[in-house]
């Protein structure tokens, strides 16, 4: 052993002894964790101030109108304007998004993680999906107007809205959230330990059997959380709907309209109502009605997120 190595060893030994033998409080750590807490509280307080501000502005509406604000329909008359039509529209869009994007997205994720060979094509698909998740939502609105509105019309589902209905909006939103569904589902599938698969293969299960009874059930909590959060995104988006065409003023179905007519007719959605009301002339709209609609939108989102957490807890597995 050379003298230099010996010296280095001595130095390390001294350092370790000093670190272990240190007594009292680790001030650096205290300072650092304190700073983190301050940053966290700043973030939270911004959110709280925002919500408190909106709640205060919205309060008169809920006080005067009570439940009728939620049960009344779209209107530009401040005395009768409510969010019921918008809630119906948003729920219908969310349903279509779930029906279209969840099966496709989860299937794509399972293929990418379990079946896809690691070649240039798979890498290309993977990169493309990630890039699509970052495309601004208004671009999907243009896509919807150029492709899905004519598609819905061509299928004979245009109805009285000439294709600018919840079907076109739902398909557009489904395509918008699809990349995010794929990414979150793929993460969940990837998080399943490989030993789980090996256990299946070990007892002679085929790949299909392993995926069906091991991988997907194990990944389900993650997949569910991800998918429900993407639903929240679909409900909150405004820009694509404005591009596709959404009723902002008033609409009502004809007296002889069937349920199908109403589904294919004009529609509106919660964020669109907030947007439209915030630019109305009558001061009540911007000052109290739009904040009240924001509170309803937030409530819907909280319910969805709550459902996501509940589903995750119900299906969660510990390794």
């Amino acid at each position, binding site marked *: 052993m050379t003298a230099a190595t010996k010296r280095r060893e001595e130095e390390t030994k001294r350092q370790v002894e000093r670190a272990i033998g240190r007594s009292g409080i680790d001030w650096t750590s205290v300072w650092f964790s304190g700073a983190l807490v301050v940053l966290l509280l700043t973030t939270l307080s911004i959110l709280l101030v925002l919500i408190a501000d909106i709640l205060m502005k919205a309060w008169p509406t809920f006080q005067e109108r009570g439940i009728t604000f939620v049960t009344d329909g779209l*209107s*530009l*008359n401040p005395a*009768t304007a409510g969010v019921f039509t918008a809630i119906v529209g948003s729920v219908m869009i969310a349903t279509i998004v779930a*029906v279209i994007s969840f099966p496709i997205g989860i299937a794509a994720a399972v293929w990418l993680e379990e079946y896809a060979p690691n070649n240039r094509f798979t890498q290309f698909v993977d990169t493309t999906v990630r890039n699509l998740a970052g495309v601004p939502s208004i671009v999907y609105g243009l896509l919807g107007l150029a492709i899905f509105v004519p598609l819905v019309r061509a*299928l*004979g*589902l*245009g*109805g*009285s*809205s*000439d294709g600018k209905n919840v079907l076109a909006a739902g398909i557009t939103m489904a395509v918008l959230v699809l990349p995010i569904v794929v990414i979150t589902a793929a993460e969940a599938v990837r998080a399943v330990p490989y030993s789980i698969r090996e256990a299946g293969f070990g007892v002679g299960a085929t790949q299909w059997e392993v995926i069906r009874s091991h991988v997907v059930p194990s990944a389900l909590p993650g997949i569910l959380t991800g998918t429900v959060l993407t639903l929240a995104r679909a409900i909150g988006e405004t820009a694509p709907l404005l591009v596709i*065409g*959404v*009723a*902002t*003023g*008033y*609409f*009502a*179905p*004809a*007296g*002889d*309209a*069937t349920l*199908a*007519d109403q*589904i*294919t*007719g*004009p529609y509106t959605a919660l964020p669109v109502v907030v947007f439209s009301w*915030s*630019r*109305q*002339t*009558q*001061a009540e709209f*911007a000052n109290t009605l739009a904040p009240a609609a924001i509170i309803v939108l937030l409530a819907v989102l909280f319910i969805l997120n709550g459902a996501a957490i509940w589903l995750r807890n119900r299906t969660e597995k510990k390794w």
Partner: protein
Amino acid sequence: MMKMKRTAVLIAAIALIAAACSSDGTTTTTTSGSGDPSVGGTVTISGSSTVEPISALNAEAFRARNPEVGISVEGPGTGDGIKKFCSGETDISGASRQIKDSEVEACGAAGIEFVELRVAVDGLSVLTSAGNTAVSCLSFADLYALLGPESLGFRDWSDANDLAGQITGANAPYPSAQLTVTGPGEESGTYNSFVELVLEDIADERGQEAQTRPDYTASANDNVIIEGISGSDTSLGWVGYAFFLANQDKVSALAVDGGDGCVSPTPQTIADGSYPIARPLFIYVNKEKAALNAAVDLYVDFYLSEDGLVNVDQAGYIRLADYAAVRAIWADRVTGMQSY
């Protein structure tokens, strides 16, 4: 057992969705296009977002009287609305400016005849913050010097003194105070009206392009513009009169001199035309659709009735001094552009 049950439920669910989808398809194809001989049917209204509130309030009141009528109102903008109108997608289109010659041609090419009806007047209001007492009246020349294309970069009212000196009718020198400008964006009808009514003539004279200075804070939301104007004591900006009316505690309207002295915007001065920067609001009605569809016909009748005009006030706009001429145009279904 469990597995079989689950699979059965899954199949049932898929079958249900499929059934729901297919029934949608069949019923739609049979019912769409069938017109109710009594007052049923649908009225589709698009066009200017400025006119949208009047049309929407009228639609709601009209639907309350004719519960069998289907009706929808949207407001993507005057230009977009007329494009749809001239391709036959809508029955009625609101407009915050008169239809252009090119649009008349497009309508004509598609074989669509329209009835032009003036339904209300909107005064453009030149606003400053409620705290600003130094200025009370601006002429077109002042507005050109402060907001026109040559005012690019002026951050202080006094920066415009030299330019104002070259234009007749300007009240220069201006006090030295910060100049912050907030107004509607270029896509808006309110922007176009302001350029046309105030800036165009002087810009033509001086060989400039008819536009505002590009360096101001623009917003498509008039309530945001009001916030911007009230945010600085020596601000300047413009919005529709209705937005001034709703925010008189935050902003004050400047009188405008269009060559005949200073006139403040009030319902009277806007209605009788003495306030120099007022613009008419129109609805365009598809003549053929009104003839074929009783709902469209009755809706326009209602629009021009006293009960319908109440909604002009409710939406914050000014009624015309007299509706006799407009009602006569509608009664005779006079097509094409009118001159005023």
